């Protein structure tokens, strides 16, 4: 029988709490970037996801994603309401920690993934439709993909895809969905040029605390206080430093000055890029992964988006989608037995790159098509977009009858 290791429990408690904390941090990262009249609507969406998706996870989500496998495609309903999920470790998932703790850690991932998408809906989505849509998305997009990649018996996992902390499952998945929704929702009205962020310090705070929480995210994915956790911790810190710096220099080169928002975005891009690779690669590889992630992110955010003109308001696709794709592929390149449990191109295993690409493509296809379908359903039933008038007045007042700040005492 598996035995609980108290030190792993200690670390995983902390890691789970850290990942939970990322959702409020994200609420500020996004909230600071929108116009003042929409700040609460963004935060509301993040917090409601924390509640609604969290609850769904307990009721059915965990069972769908990690429950006993059915045909490699989805978990069975055996674990709904957490039936049978107790403080005894599972024989497959986190064998040194209580099964409940593994479930809790995964709960935080299930929460943050749809929360990441929120940035693409900013300033124009109807709250009720959003809520309906996001629950469906969590159930029918996130849970299956998580099953494929991480569950015992999931078909992508059997295929050998490496995804340390959720490059495909989380970032590619959310990034593609964000792109789809932002295109379907259409552009915000009257934004000839992007309005400056209403409270950039909030976004700075968000980026800093996402960084902090990401240690739980990546190093926690080792599921214990072990060597893999340490490697993931170090590569996480390095990749984000390198990415932040590269973005700064790109800004300097292309826009004359280094910008705060650039550095903050770069840090997040680096964190995303290293996520699937965190426990598999060397610190030096982390520098490269972060740097290239930043390059790709910068290119998509500042060149590709303006070129195509879709309104991915807070660059969820550019940063999470593209850097997630890069990270997934980079894992196939840089994974090294010397640092983790996988081997990639540099270890003389080029096939891994292809396996990674497959996982990415499948995620893109499933997430892209599935999201579009769910969007049409939700749009048909409720209408996803607010009226022009509501958009002008702002979502805070129209969707929630609140304003972020008082103008007067």
């Amino acid at each position, binding site marked *: 029988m598996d035995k609980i290791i108290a030190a792993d429990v200690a670390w995983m408690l902390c890691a789970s709490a850290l990942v939970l904390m990322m959702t409020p941090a994200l609420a500020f990262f996004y909230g600071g970037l929108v116009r003042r009249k929409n700040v609460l609507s963004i935060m509301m969406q993040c917090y409601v996801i924390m509640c609604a998706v969290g609850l769904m996870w307990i009721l059915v989500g965990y069972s769908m994603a990690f429950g006993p496998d059915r045909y490699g495609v989805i978990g069975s309903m055996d674990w709904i309401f957490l039936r049978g999920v107790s403080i005894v470790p599972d024989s497959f998932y986190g064998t040194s920690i209580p099964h409940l703790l593994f479930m809790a850690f995964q709960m935080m991932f299930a929460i943050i993934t749809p929360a990441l998408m929120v940035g693409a809906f900013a300033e124009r989505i109807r709250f009720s439709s959003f809520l309906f849509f996001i629950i469906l998305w969590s159930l029918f997009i996130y849970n299956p993909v998580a099953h494929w990649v991480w569950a015992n018996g999931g078909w992508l996992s059997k295929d050998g895809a490496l995804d340390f902390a959720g490059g495909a499952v989380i970032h590619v998945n959310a990034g593609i969905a964000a792109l789809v929704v932002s295109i379907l929702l259409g552009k915000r009205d009257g934004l*000839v040029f992007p309005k400056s962020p209403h409270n950039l310090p909030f976004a700075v705070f968000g980026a800093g605390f996402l960084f902090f929480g990401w240690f739980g995210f990546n190093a926690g994915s080792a599921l214990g206080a072990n060597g893999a956790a340490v490697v993931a911790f170090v590569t996480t810190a390095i990749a984000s430093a390198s990415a932040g710096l590269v973005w700064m220099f790109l800004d300097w080169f292309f826009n004359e000055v280094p910008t705060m928002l650039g550095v903050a975005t770069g840090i997040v891009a680096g964190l995303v890029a290293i996520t699937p690779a965190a426990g598999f690669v060397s610190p030096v590889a982390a520098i490269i992964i972060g740097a290239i992630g930043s390059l790709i992110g910068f290119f998509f955010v500042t060149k590709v988006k303006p070129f195509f003109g879709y309104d991915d308001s807070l660059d969820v696709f550019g940063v999470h989608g593209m850097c997630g794709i890069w990270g997934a592929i980079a894992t196939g390149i840089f994974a090294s037995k010397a640092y983790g449990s996988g081997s990639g191109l540099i270890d003389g295993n080029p096939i891994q790159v292809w396996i990674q690409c497959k996982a990415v493509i499948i995620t893109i296809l499933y997430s892209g098509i599935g999201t579009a379908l769910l969007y049409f359903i939700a749009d048909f039933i409720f209408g996803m977009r607010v009226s022009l008038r509501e958009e002008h007045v702002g979502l805070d*007042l129209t969707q929630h*009858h*609140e304003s972020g700040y008082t103008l007067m005492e």
Partner: protein
Amino acid sequence: MKYIVAIIRPHKLEDVKKELLKEEVHLMTITEVLGCGRQQGITEVYRGVKEVDNLLRKVKLEIAVNDSFVERTVDAIMRSSREGEIGDGKIFILDLEECIRIRTGERGGEAIG
């Protein structure tokens, strides 16, 4: 010379500026204000207690112009900021006695533009 004060909807600011530019009025001073008018405010709710506040965010433009520009300015503002629903705002015109450009010390019509 006249001193034009216009209260408009915040999201119309860009349009108004663009329209004024067409009339070669590109100097103005802008303030964020709260308007209390016919337009009903949105009832805000904080912990279940409703706050029926009829103060709405508006933007105030102050534009000093030479007499010959007054109508063009007023027209431009009206064209670009009207939605036809309560809350569109008002334009007030005051007489301006003197205008001085600090940089050069110019006075009067010279200084205004």
